[in-house]
């Protein structure tokens, strides 16, 4: 079956290419065109004089979202939290089952669990009043064979919007776009 051969070749190629990437990509530590846009999505300014209160309200929101706190350094406004969750998505499962029927169970890769990490950082606003809070999420996804399938930053607008909506309610303060 030529299709099967093609798929095997493509997969082998992908593994070889991914195996070769042992040096750091040239753009990894440079600002890029998305830097400013990401900052705007991930940060809000809060009109408060009390950084600790803002952090503690944010910690409560992280708990509302089911995160467990891993690290906290309130002196420099840092909270780190994570949670493990199911990663199955119905669309992917259906597609992979089809692949399994065609090429055997070994060809299937269904995302099964994920680790979601969040770091939340506050810092005094540049103009001297209030604090800027920036939250960033990332995740690692494993398939049913415990192999890593995705390792990525979460840049989805709705995720951040949802977080700040909850935080605004939590601090009873108006979150202002920067």
């Amino acid at each position: 079956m030529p299709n099967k051969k093609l798929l095997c070749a493509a997969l082998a190629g992908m593994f070889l290419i991914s195996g070769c990437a042992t040096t750091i990509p040239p753009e990894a530590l440079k600002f890029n065109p998305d830097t400013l846009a990401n900052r705007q999505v991930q940060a809000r300014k809060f009109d408060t004089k009390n950084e600790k209160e803002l952090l503690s309200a944010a910690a409560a929101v992280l708990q509302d979202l089911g995160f467990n706190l891993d690290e906290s350094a309130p002196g420099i406004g840092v909270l780190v939290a994570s949670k493990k969750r199911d990663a199955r998505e119905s669309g992917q499962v259906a597609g992979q089952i089809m692949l399994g029927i065609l090429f055997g169970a070994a060809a299937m890769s269904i995302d099964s669990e994920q680790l979601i990490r969040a770091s939340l950082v506050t810092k005094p606003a540049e103009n001297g009043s209030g604090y800027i809070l920036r939250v960033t999420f990332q995740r690692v996804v494993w398939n049913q064979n415990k192999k890593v399938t995705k390792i990525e930053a979460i840049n989805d607008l709705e995720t951040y919007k949802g977080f700040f909506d909850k935080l605004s309610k939590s601090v009873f303060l108006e979150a202002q776009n920067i």
Partner: protein
Amino acid sequence: MKITKRNLSVGLTVICSAFILSGCETMQARVLDSSTNKSAVQLRSMQSRAFDTTDRLKTMRTVIATLQDLSFVVDKADMELGSISATKLDGYALRMTVSVRPHSEKMVIVRANAQFNITPVTEPKPYQDFFVALEKAMFLTAQQVE
């Protein structure tokens, strides 16, 4: 010598093992990273810069903000030691630890070290890029440390 199936398979096994073993280094070399062709002095020099400020806290906050701008998620921060660790996930895992130490009466030294997946980053370019990003955020020039 007649090439039998047995001889062939023994030969292949030896060749394969040689390839596998040549990729190995001793545990000691891995722990001490002694196989990198850079000396400790060279590494420190490419990984460190001095800034004309005594505000260690503000420098730490700026380092964190720069790391966030570069899509890192902070793993750990310690105000007393002045150290920050963060990870960037983008199809790869890039982990950095940055430390901020007072240098003289009017300077701080920022030192960064990075690992890309399972290898140490020992080329100067990524560190240069990091310090270029940091200088922009600090509004100060990053100076080479002698």
